[in-house]
C-alpha cells in the first residue's frame, strides 16, 4: 500500500542554474504511477534540462527530485528510469540486438534475463526485421524506434522521452504514439515535444514550462475549456454599438472588425458563454454567420504566455 502511494516522480522546488542563468526555477510537481505526462515549452524553456535532471544526468542546483522515493541523481533511481535523449545515442557500429544487449547489461538486467528482455523489446518496438542490421544502416524512423527500445529494455518504472516525435513522418508519429500508450508494464511516461497536437493525443496531463518556470498544468480538456472562452464570431450587418452593449455583460474583451457582409468579432469570456451570446444576437435580430472557439488550445495557451508571462494556467 505504501508503495502505491509513493509518486512515481516528485519534484520539490527544483532549480538548475548554469552560471547566472536559471534554466529551471523553483519547479514543483508530482506524477503518479502509470500517468503519461507531457512537458511543453518553447525552445529554451528548460524542458531538456528538467528531463536530464529526472534521469539523473544532471543534478539540481537546489530542491529535490525523487523517482519512486529515491533521489534522481542516485543509481537506485537511475535503475528505474529509461531515457531517450533528443538525439538517440546509438552505437552505430553495433547491430540492433547487440546494442540493446549492451544497454541491458549497462542497465543492470541480470544475465539470465537479458535475452528475454531484448527479445520482448524487439517485438514491442517492431524491430524484428532489422535485429541483425548495424544501427548505422537504419533509417531515421527505425533509429528512433531503437532509441525507444533502449529506453525500455530494462522494463523501467519511469520512461523519459525527450522529443520522441522529432523528425518522424505522420505515420511514424501515429505508430510511436500507439507504442507509448501501450507500453509493457504500464510505466509512468514523461515526454516533451514541440508537436502540440500530438502531446494532446498522447498524454493524460500536461505541464507547461516557460522560461524555466512551471507556468501551467492540467489535462488537455482543461486547457481546451480555457480556450473555449476565446471566441471568434462572424455576424451579418448590424449596429455594432448595440451588439457590444448586449455582449458586454458576458465578455471580458470585445473587438469588432468590419468585413465584407458584416463584422468579425473577437471575444473573450470569463467562462463558456456561447449560448448567452447567441441568444443576445437573436434578440437583436442579427444573423450569426459563424462561431468558433480558438481551434488550437495549446498554441493559444503558448501565445498567451508569450504575451503575458503572468498568465495563469489550467490549475
Amino acid at each position: 500500500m505504501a508503495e502505491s502511494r509513493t509518486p512515481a516522480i516528485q519534484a520539490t522546488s527544483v532549480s538548475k542554474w548554469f552560471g547566472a542563468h536559471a534554466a529551471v526555477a523553483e519547479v514543483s510537481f508530482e506524477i503518479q504511477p502509470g500517468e503519461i505526462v507531457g512537458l511543453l515549452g518553447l525552445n529554451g524553456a528548460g524542458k531538456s534540462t528538467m528531463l536530464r535532471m529526472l534521469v539523473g544526468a544532471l543534478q539540481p542546483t537546489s530542491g529535490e527530485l525523487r523517482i519512486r522515493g529515491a533521489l534522481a541523481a542516485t543509481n537506485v533511481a537511475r535503475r528505474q528510469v529509461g531515457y531517450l535523449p533528443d538525439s538517440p545515442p546509438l552505437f552505430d557500429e553495433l547491430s540492433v540486438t547487440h546494442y540493446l544487449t549492451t544497454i541491458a547489461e549497462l542497465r543492470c538486467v541480470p544475465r539470465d534475463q537479458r535475452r528475454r528482455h531484448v527479445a520482448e523489446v524487439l517485438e514491442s518496438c517492431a524491430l524484428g526485421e532489422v535485429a541483425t542490421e548495424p544501427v548505422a544502416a537504419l533509417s531515421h524512423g527505425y533509429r528512433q524506434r531503437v532509441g525507444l527500445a533502449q529506453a525500455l529494455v530494462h522494463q523501467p518504472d519511469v520512461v523519459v522521452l525527450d522529443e520522441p516525435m522529432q523528425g518522424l513522418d505522420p505515420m511514424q508519429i501515429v505508430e510511436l504514439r500507439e507504442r507509448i500508450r501501450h507500453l509493457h508494464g504500464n510505466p509512468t511516461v514523461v515526454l516533451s515535444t514541440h508537436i502540440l497536437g500530438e502531446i494532446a493525443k498522447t498524454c493524460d496531463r500536461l505541464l507547461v514550462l516557460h522560461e524555466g518556470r512551471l507556468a501551467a498544468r492540467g489535462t488537455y480538456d482543461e486547457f481546451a475549456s480555457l480556450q473555449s472562452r476565446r471566441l471568434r464570431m462572424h455576424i451579418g450587418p448590424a449596429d455594432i454599438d448595440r451588439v457590444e452593449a448586449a455582449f458586454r455583460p458576458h465578455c471580458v474583451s470585445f473587438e469588432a472588425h468590419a468585413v465584407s457582409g458584416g463584422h468579425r468579432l473577437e471575444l473573450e469570456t470569463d467562462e463558456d458563454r456561447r449560448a448567452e451570446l447567441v441568444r443576445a444576437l437573436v434578440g437583436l435580430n442579427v444573423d450569426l454567420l459563424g462561431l468558433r472557439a480558438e481551434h488550437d488550445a495549446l498554441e493559444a495557451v503558448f501565445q498567451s504566455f508569450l504575451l503575458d508571462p503572468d498568465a495563469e494556467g489550467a490549475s
Partner: protein
Amino acid sequence: MNARFGAIVRREVGAYARTPMGWLVAALVLSLDALQLNGVAMGSERRPSSWVLEIFLLNASFLTEALAVLLTMRLQLDEREAPLWRSLPLGDVELVLGRFTAAMLWLGGITLATLYLPALIFVNGHVSLAHIATGYASILLVGALGLAIGSWMAALTRRPLTAALATAGVLAMLELGYYVATTTSPPWRGLLRDLAPVWGRGQNLRRGIFSLADVAYYLVCTTLVLSFAVRAFASRRRS
C-alpha cells in the same frame, strides 16, 4: 570489477575495433615503429644490437606517448552520448576506469603487435628476451601513464581536441623537465629528471635493468592521476 564494468570495456574496445579511426591509428603507429627501427635505430653503420634495441625502445616509447594523446580524444564522453552515459546506473569509477581500460587494451594490443620488430633484433643480434620484456614493460607503463593523464584531461575539458592537446602539453612538460633539470641544482635536478616518463624513468627498463622503483613510479603516478580523473569526472557529473 563487475558486469557493467565489463560491458563498458567491451563497448569501448568494440568502438576502437569497429571504426576506421581505431585501425588508422594502429596502422600509423605500426608503420612508424617499423620505419624508426630501420631508419633511426639500425642506422647505416654497424651498431651493437643491444644499442639498436635501446634506441628502438626509446623511439617506441615516444610513439606510445603520441598514441596515448590520440586515444585521449576517445576518453572523453561523446557529446551526443554523454546524456545517456550519465543517466546509466554506473559509478564514476566504473565509467572512468572502463574507458581507460579499453584504451589501455587497444594501446597494449598495438604495442604487442610491434613485437616482431625486436624479435628481428633477437634473431639477428645478441639481445636477451629479458631485455625485450623490460623494454616492453616500460612502453606499456608509459602508455598507461599517458592514458591516465588523458583521462584526467578528458574529464577537465569539454572538447576531445582540447583534451588531447592538454595531454600532449602535460607529457611534453614532463619530458622537457629532463632537459631543464640540467640547468638546475639538487633537489630539483633529480626530481625533474625522475618525473620524465620516457627520458628519465624509462632508462633502466630500456637497458634491460628491472628497477622496482621505476615500475612503482609509473604505477603510483598512474593510480594517482586516475584518481584525479575520477574526481574531476564525478564533479562534472554532479554539476
